[in-house]
Each structure stands twice: as structure tokens, then as C-alpha cells.
């Protein structure tokens, strides 16, 4: 029976260690990330690696490319000058908030919608993009709108709010959550689900090089994307907001929209142009 005593000891000590760890994690909020980054002239952004048009790793050179990447670079330069550098850390919907809270990254620009639940944990910049949730289906699918998904299987991504949204519109839908978009899309193609749900702009990017799949129906939610920032980093937040409005005012924003979305079937870029 001795072993059981040890077993209990292990578990209690594990619990203790992690509770203590949880208490010890306050140091980050006392740092001023805005001033830290000013010294190094580098902002570390959490970006997506699997989302075409927004943030995708290019097989040719291993670099991240997309609208969010370009926007992050533009914002960094507005914040700290022409020679400032944007550093990218690839995140998934699951890992982005833990990484931000832990301080691996300074800010998240990774298709993250501003939601009240998330605002309890982190802060957001002003919205930098207006997406809406939609569904991607195979050509000829009987599913015409989100409500048709009751009693059907729908694929989403762990950590995205789309999986929670879809339950409001189709409460009887069966939801499968996969680790990232690349896998979610492949699972849809393999017939693991009847539709893939996430924001229309992400789906549009998928439809581009996957003939036989299309965006179905109108967007059924509005998903304003915001840059995620840790609570208490007010200097960083206002600097990002200021830089964002400058990028919008001087036309860089619209140029980037045209560059990435100007020619995407099923996605009307004019709706997302600013000013």
C-alpha cells in the first residue's frame, strides 16, 4: 500500500507546483512592452502559418506571407520607424492566447475576432479587418445555409470562436475541432464533415486553390478582427491603434487589401476597404 501513499504525494506536489506557478506569473504585467520594443526596435507578432491570403508559410523560402503579415510590418514601421523589424512567431488558434499571456509574443495578428469572452483575458486594438463567419462546402452540396447543418457534421478549428458560434445557428450540428486550418480543410476533403466553418476571408483563401469547393450562403456573423495585446499594456495598445489609423489614412491599408483580396472569387474586397 506504500505505493499509493507515494502516488498521492506525487499528485499533491504536482498540484502545489502548478498553483504556485500560477501565482508567480504576474511579473509580465509590470513590464512595459512598448518601451522594451522601442529599445530593440523589434515587435514580435504571433501570426498564422496555414491561412492563405492572411498568413501562410511559403514553401519556396519558408517565410510567412499574407495580408496580416504585411499589415504587421506596416504597423511596426509606423510605430518605431523605417528600420524597425517585425519578428514573426507562428501560432495556431489554440496556442495564440497562451503565448501572448506568457510573453512569447508581444501581439497577436492572427485572424482573431474581438469577442467579449476574450476581452475578459486580453485587450484588443481597434478592428483591422471586417470578416464574417461563413461555411465552405463541396460543389453541389445540399447545404445552402448554416441552419441546414442541424444533424450534420461540421468541421472547425480548436480555439476559434466559430465552433461556438455555429452551435447558436445549428444547435444540433455535430462539431469536430481540428488542430489547424490545413488539417481542417483536408478533413473536409476526406469527407470527415459536411462543411467547414470559419471566417469568410479564410474560406475564400481555401477556395482559391481548391476547385470543387465554394463559399456557401451569406456570412451569418460579423467578425471584426483585432490585434490581441496583453491587459495592462496600454502604451503598446495606443501605439498600435495610432499606427493602425495612420496606415489606414495614408492608403497603405487599401493597397494591401487590393494586393491580397483584389482578385479573389467569392469575396468582395470593396466591402472591406477603409475610408
Amino acid at each position: 500500500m506504500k505505493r499509493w501513499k507515494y502516488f498521492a504525494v506525487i499528485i499533491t506536489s504536482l498540484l502545489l507546483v502548478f498553483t504556485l506557478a500560477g501565482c508567480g506569473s504576474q511579473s509580465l504585467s509590470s513590464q512595459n512592452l512598448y518601451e522594451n520594443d522601442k529599445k530593440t526596435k523589434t515587435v514580435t507578432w504571433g501570426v498564422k502559418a496555414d491561412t492563405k491570403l492572411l498568413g501562410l508559410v511559403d514553401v519556396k523560402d519558408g517565410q510567412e506571407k499574407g495580408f496580416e503579415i504585411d499589415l504587421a510590418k506596416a504597423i511596426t514601421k509606423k510605430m518605431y520607424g523605417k528600420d524597425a523589424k517585425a519578428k514573426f512567431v507562428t501560432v495556431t488558434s489554440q496556442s495564440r492566447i497562451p503565448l501572448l499571456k506568457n510573453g512569447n509574443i508581444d501581439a497577436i495578428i492572427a485572424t482573431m475576432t474581438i469577442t467579449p469572452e476574450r476581452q475578459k483575458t486580453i485587450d484588443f486594438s481597434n478592428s483591422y479587418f471586417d470578416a464574417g463567419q461563413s461555411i465552405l462546402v463541396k460543389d453541389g452540396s445540399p447545404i445552402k445555409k448554416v441552419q441546414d447543418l442541424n444533424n450534420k457534421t461540421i468541421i472547425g478549428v480548436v480555439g476559434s470562436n466559430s465552433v461556438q458560434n455555429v452551435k447558436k445557428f445549428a444547435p444540433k450540428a455535430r462539431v469536430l475541432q481540428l488542430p489547424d486550418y490545413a488539417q481542417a480543410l483536408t478533413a473536409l476533403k476526406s469527407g470527415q464533415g459536411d462543411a467547414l466553418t470559419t471566417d469568410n476571408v479564410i474560406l475564400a483563401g481555401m477556395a482559391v486553390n481548391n476547385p470543387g469547393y465554394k463559399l456557401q450562403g451569406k456570412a451569418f456573423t460579423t467578425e471584426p478582427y483585432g490585434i490581441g495585446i496583453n491587459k495592462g499594456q496600454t502604451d503598446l495598445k495606443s501605439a498600435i491603434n495610432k499606427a493602425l489609423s495612420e496606415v489606414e489614412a495614408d492608403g497603405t491599408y487599401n493597397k494591401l487589401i487590393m494586393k491580397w483580396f483584389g482578385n479573389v472569387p467569392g469575396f468582395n474586397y470593396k466591402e472591406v476597404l477603409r475610408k
Partner: protein
Amino acid sequence: MQNWIDAYSWINIRFLLQGLWITILISVISVILSFIIGSVLGIIRYAKIPYLSRIVGFIIDVIRNLPLLLIIFFVYFGLPAFGFKPDTIPAAILAMTVFESMMIAEIIRSGILAVDPGQMEASRAMGMKMSQAMWHIVLPQAYKKMIPALVSQFISLIKDTSLATIIVVPELMQHGQVVYGQDPNYIIPVFVAMAVMYFVVCYALSLLSKFIDRRMA
């Protein structure tokens, strides 16, 4: 057929090979580190030092009995609470090292146990210190006995690095996903390529282990 030719374009293959390189890099660094740490922990557990051996033993048992995926999450999401913020590749190396050290510690301990205890006693009787007897007499024999187990642990480690794809470590599995994410027709060719790459590396190692085993016997 065209799918296979397109999927195996040099750009894609090069990208997969870059992933394989990271896989090997992570595995080699982790195996070296965990061999050292594992040896120390294994000897501590074997030596029955009051309290210390027990505590080390518990830690080994707990970590050994958790899924590696969980260790990866703890390192990547949990460690920063202690003020250490690893990037993905160092995080993967650290997670692998923590996990593998515990596995290797057990291999080392049972290797030492398999050496005839009379040898230790004899060396002590000849006036050697415990540490001397361990270093010169027991360990060399123990390591020889453990080679097959150690190599197969190394092979497991290479295969297990694929789990690190969950935190977007740019290793072979992750690069494979990026490549077949481009085009639906690439899935099978990419899976075949990944399987072949893993197989070649792991199988070569297992042949090497059999060869060494035969030479030593």
C-alpha cells in the same frame, strides 16, 4: 501521375527535407542531453540515496507515464510562468529532453541492475570507492547491455518529434502539412514521402544497432 510529379517538385521536396533536417536536429540534441541527464537520474535512483532517490524515482515515474503531447504543452505553455519563454524549436528540444531523460533513466537503472552485483562487491573489496567501481566496472558493462534499448529509444524519439507539429515546430510533419495544404492532390504523395523519410532514418538506425550488437556479442 501528374499529381505525383507536381507534388515531388524540387521546391516541395526541398521544403520537406528542411523539415527532416529540423526533425533530426531536435532528435540529436535531445538524445545527447537526455543521455547525460538520464544517466545521472538513473544512477541516483539506483544508488538508493535517502530521500533523493525516492524523489527522483517519483518524478521519473510521473513523467514517464504522461503522454509526450502533454509534456510539450507544459513546456511551451507552462514554463513561461517561471520566466522562461522558449521558441518552438528550443521548446520541442526541451520537452523531448525532459521526457526522454526519464525513459533513459529507467533503461540505465535496469541496465545497472542487470550487471552482476558481485562485481560491485568485488571492486569495493579491492578498495575502490563506490563512484570508482561504478565508473570503471559497472557502467561500461551496463552501457554495453543497454545499447539496443537505447537505440530503440532514440528511434522512438525521432518518431515522437512529429507530435511537436501541434505547437507549429517546423519539422517534417509540419512541413508535410504545409505542402499538402497547398493542393488536395498532394496528400498521398506527401504522406508517402514523409513515411519514406522517417522510415529511412529510423530503419538505418535500427540496422546500425543490430550491427553494433553483433560486433559486441
